[in-house]
């Protein structure tokens, strides 16, 4: 699944969920998204950074520079405001996925009845 209007909010949801567990830099985060979603969601890897910058500007993330193996990395972590935002996104997406699952189930049931 790639970018479409239906995917609005998905990158933010994934980013916040993963960064809630541990702070990461961009490359680590993209690898984590690929691993967690089994490559079902493939973002152009560079496009994650504008989302990170925007979330940081909103106060949902905080960043710090850290020297790792001689290279300076920008690590991102979720703030308290970000955790609240994530809870809202999770509720929203749970509601949508439940509705779609229900709709798919009803369609299958109707097809089986016919």
């Amino acid at each position, binding site marked *: 699944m790639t970018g479409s209007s239906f995917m609005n909010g998905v990158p933010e949801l994934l980013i916040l969920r993963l960064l809630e567990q541990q702070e990461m830099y*961009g*490359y680590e985060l993209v690898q984590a998204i690929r691993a967690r979603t089994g490559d079902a969601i493939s973002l*152009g890897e560079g496009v994650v*950074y*504008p989302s990170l910058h*925007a979330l940081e500007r909103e106060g949902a993330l905080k960043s710090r520079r850290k020297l790792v193996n001689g290279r300076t990395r*920008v690590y991102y972590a979720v703030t308290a405001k970000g955790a609240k935002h994530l809870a809202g996104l999770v509720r929203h997406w749970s509601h949508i996925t439940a509705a779609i699952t229900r709709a798919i189930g009803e369609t299958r049931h109707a097809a089986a009845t016919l």
Partner: protein
Amino acid sequence: MPQPRFDELRERLLRAGIAPRHVRRYVGELRDHFDDLVREDLSKAMSRDAAETAARTRLGSEGDLAGVMLARPALRSLTARYPWAVFGVGPVVLLIAGLVAAVAIEMQALHLATLLLPNPAHRLPPEGAMQIVAAWNGIATLVAPLGIAGLLCFMGARQRMPARWIFAGVVIACVLGGFQRLSFADNGYHGEMMLGSGLLPPFPRDLLAAGIWRALIDLALVGGAWWILLRRGSSPA
């Protein structure tokens, strides 16, 4: 294949008004990400050329990378969003604030001096002290407008602002600043601080004439510095 520098991407984002700090960080992060992708593929025994080509593909095209950044108006700088405030109102506020601060500091310093060094014989203040006060007044009225004009040039160039905005800001700073005068005199009995502007009634002739010259000199100095920087091809961003 060399590591991408993302120069075109940087220019495109700056010209579109994305804040320079976001652009600088974005480009830095993309370069690091590219390096990580290349290393990942090299560790899988891929050739460097193939690894770099794959890394470019995985990172996304420059069009995509610019598009996602431009789709976030919150990342635009204040300079790009409100150029009239930065280049129009900004120099006026900075000039006034600078003058008020300079006068306040000078008054406190002179007050402290009278407390620490009482002058019951009403002698004239030492020449050195008067020169220090005159230098301070010079910084507030002669140097500050140039500093503000330089700051506006730096901000405008850094954000790749249209030249008309930078020019407007520089003219406002040089003209308003050129017509100000701050002076201090002390006859041993009392000191007198004078703050005047040739642009305010009753439009003193001496201030008007001096102001025109100072504004022209300031504009020439800023224009000359700008021209030299352009010739050297340096960019503040």
